[in-house]
């Protein structure tokens, strides 16, 4: 939590000196033209680290983006939403989204599609998940399906001079795990001439059902671990940075970085061998 506090203090002090515009639509990352598809692709290199044992990191070579906003409905990189009410300082949306946890298990999870990668999620061959030699082994190839599901709920934005605060609560729509997720996000945008910097601090809460579905062990996978590891609700903490330099009307240089501190309740799962995950991407982005 200390790094979150440090980040907020650092950015707040910078924000006091930065000359950020009051206009909500002062650059193309904030606003989008109504009734027009926004399609783009970023080409470059990056990696999304995989905290799962025996699963490879995910290399990133291309990051697509696709969005369409109507007067109230919107589609944004797989998220579908409807704006219930909006004012100068707030927005309330009904929204559907998807969990990020499944992406560590499956290459073609939607989360990974928007991180279009080369080899994707592959299990390392000849390895097995084990904690200590004395404890039973979980064969990663024998893991049962972790199915895809959509989450639906409500999100609210508050637009303040100290940045944007987003709060959301979503619940499993398809009875896959019947879990709930909640998110609190603070982000600050600093446009400076041709540069744009976006900082974000995120708290992601996952209910016990979500944690158990993705990181719990089924009895068929390992009777021992299904007893020993008992999932609990968990709170992940992340910091994100997106830096863009506008080259032309269509081309931007792009640097994206994210660090997530995974909650102890999830790290305790025998499926994990690190307590964090990092993502970075450096490249050039083209907007059609």
């Amino acid at each position, binding site marked *: 939590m200390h790094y979150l506090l440090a980040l907020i203090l650092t950015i707040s002090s910078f924000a006091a000196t930065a000359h950020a515009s009051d206009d*909500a*639509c002062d650059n193309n*990352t*904030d*606003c*989008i*033209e*109504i*009734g*027009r598809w*926004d399609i*783009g692709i*970023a080409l470059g290199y990056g990696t*999304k680290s995989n905290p799962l044992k025996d699963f490879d990191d995910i290399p990133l070579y291309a*990051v697509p*983006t696709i*969005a369409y*906003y109507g*007067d109230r409905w*919107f589609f*944004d*990189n797989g*998220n579908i*939403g409807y704006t219930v009410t*909006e004012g100068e300082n707030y*927005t309330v*949306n009904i929204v559907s989204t998807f969990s*990020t946890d499944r*992406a560590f298990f499956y290459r073609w999870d939607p*989360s990974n599609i*928007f*991180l279009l990668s080369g080899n994707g999620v592959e299990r390392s061959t000849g390895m097995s998940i084990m904690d200590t030699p004395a404890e039973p082994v979980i064969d990663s190839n024998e893991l049962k399906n972790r199915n895809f599901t959509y989450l639906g709920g409500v*999100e609210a*934005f508050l637009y303040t001079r100290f940045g944007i605060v987003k709060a959301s609560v979503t619940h499993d729509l398809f009875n896959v795990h019947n879990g709930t997720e909640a998110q609190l996000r603070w*982000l600050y945008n600093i446009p400076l001439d041709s540069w744009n910097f*976006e900082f*974000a601090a995120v708290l992601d809460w996952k209910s016990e059902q979500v944690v158990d579905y993705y990181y719990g062990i089924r009895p068929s996978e390992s009777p021992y671990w299904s007893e020993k590891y008992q999932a609990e609700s968990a709170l992940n903490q992340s910091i*994100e940075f*997106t830096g*863009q330099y506008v080259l032309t009307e269509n081309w931007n240089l*792009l640097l*994206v970085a*994210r660090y997530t501190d995974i909650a102890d309740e999830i790290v305790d799962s025998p499926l994990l061998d690190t307590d964090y995950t990092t*993502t970075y*991407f450096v490249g050039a*982005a083209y907007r059609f």
Partner: protein
Amino acid sequence: MTKKISLCLLFCSSLSGYTVAEDIELLATSLSLSPKICITSKDEEICNVEVVLEWRLLQERSICILSDYKELKKWCNSSPGINSLAVNISADKDIQFVMIDKDTHETLAGVKLKVTQASSPQVRRRYRNPWSLF
């Protein structure tokens, strides 16, 4: 005292009679423009349009049209019977036209062509960073 008042009334009535007649003539004088607004395209900032100026006068007289458009600094009708003028305009800002009496240079009427750019596309807030990493 009565004599002074009578003189004043006589003078004032003759003066007001002159003003009223002049006002009536000015009210009956008009200069119209069609179209009055030119909307430029989204890509081009120049407005290209043919406009028609028409004027009505209580009595026929020679007039001149003045404007701040570089191609039509001053135009005067060759005969009092002409009461319209077509002008091809290529401009990026408003143009003011003024009609004056050719002989007395009295300003009779005025009209403005408004040059407006096509409205900007409607935008709204985007709720996701396009390059957010899930």
